[in-house]
């Protein structure tokens, strides 16, 4: 517990508040679900939030920083510092189980564990990705690159629906 701006606040409460900040590109996920908030530090008069990008070129980082600031300002905190770090590099293993469930309900196949994709084997048979619509594993990769840096394009051979897969990283 720390006194800040005449309020008593614990880092736990800040983490809780940040659950309300969503990723602008995958709005069903909060920045906590995504695993991009790495640390929260409270000093005598300042709150520091340490975040890390999903991809080097992630265009959402500026908006995410601003939204974090906004929500803290709304709750009466004035001195807020957002620090972006690159190491250790973000991985989909940091995504919460709750986040993965929300992704699936939203129609995006959640990432499997990371070991299966990060290699340079060519035309490699991937582990089957489950269709978020009909749960079939009879799915096919269309492209490793999708509508945002973090997603790949798949199509379900069973229900014939295309879908996004939040790719392992």
């Amino acid at each position, binding site marked *: 517990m720390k006194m800040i701006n005449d309020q008593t606040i614990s880092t736990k409460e800040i983490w809780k508040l940040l659950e309300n900040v969503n990723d602008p590109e995958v709005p069903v996920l909060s920045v906590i679900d995504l695993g991009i908030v790495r640390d929260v530090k409270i000093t005598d008069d300042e709150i520091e939030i340490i975040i890390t*990008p999903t*991809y080097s070129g992630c265009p959402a980082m500026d908006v995410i920083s601003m939204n974090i600031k906004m929500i803290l300002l709304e709750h009466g905190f004035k001195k807020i510092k957002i620090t972006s*770090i690159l*190491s*250790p*590099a973000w991985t989909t293993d940091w995504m919460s189980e709750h986040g993965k469930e929300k992704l699936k309900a939203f129609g995006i196949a959640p990432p499997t564990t990371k070991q299966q994709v990060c290699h340079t084997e060519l035309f490699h048979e991937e582990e089957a990705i489950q269709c978020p619509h009909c749960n079939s594993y009879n799915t096919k990769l269309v492209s*490793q*690159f999708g509508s945002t*840096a973090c997603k790949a394009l798949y199509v379900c051979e069973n229900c014939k629906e295309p879908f996004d897969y939040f790719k392992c990283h």
Partner: protein
Amino acid sequence: MKNQLINYTLHLADNSLILGHRNSEWTGHGPILEQDIAISNIALDLIGQARNFYQYAAKLINESTDQPATEDTLAYLRDANDFKNFLLVEQPNGDWAKTILRQFLFSAYQFYLYQQLNNSNDETLFAIAEKSLKEVVYHLRWSSEWVIRLGDGTEESRTRMLKAIDDLWMFTEEMFEPFSYEKIAASEKYGVDVSLLKNGWMKKVRDVFDEATLSIPKNVLMQKGGKEGNHTEHLEHLLNEMQFLQRTYPNSEW
């Protein structure tokens, strides 16, 4: 020593920015929608990597000189002869085969470079390399598969790939001949001895070319000079377009 670290960081940044910009020229013009998205994603990754390097270079410059720099001044306000990128990455897109081959030759290089930069004693260079390597694995796989598809594809795709090899192979040697700031970077252990990357790179290229029924050209007269600021005419044209807004309307923002 700081100066050489700045030059080395700018060299890494320039390679990523210039190829990222070239790839972005395909956005909206790709052969099919999925591949338009793929090349645009790769452009985004490369420009993101460039931003990380430029931000670091700007910080170092601001610590050691009184000429303030930002990532934007470094990208938009330097002249062609200040850029330290390879001749390879500034070559015009040409057709899809040439774009693919250029990406493959460069991604294979970046793959081994970033692996080695993971041993850097410089915290920031290490962090950027660790982050970027994960992205480059996807670029390398994607471009390798396309080299194979085109090389071992139809008569037309093969003819185009052979032409691309003819146009680009001459720019490959430059990647493995260390220039002064690279030699210092390697000896000070924040950078990579690029001459040591050649064997791994060559093996990778040979494996993919074999699969694509293509062969490595022999007796090619190699071109170099980009690392020291001597570029082909193409960089000037690229910068004219990329820097136009900041040159014409200085400090404009949106």
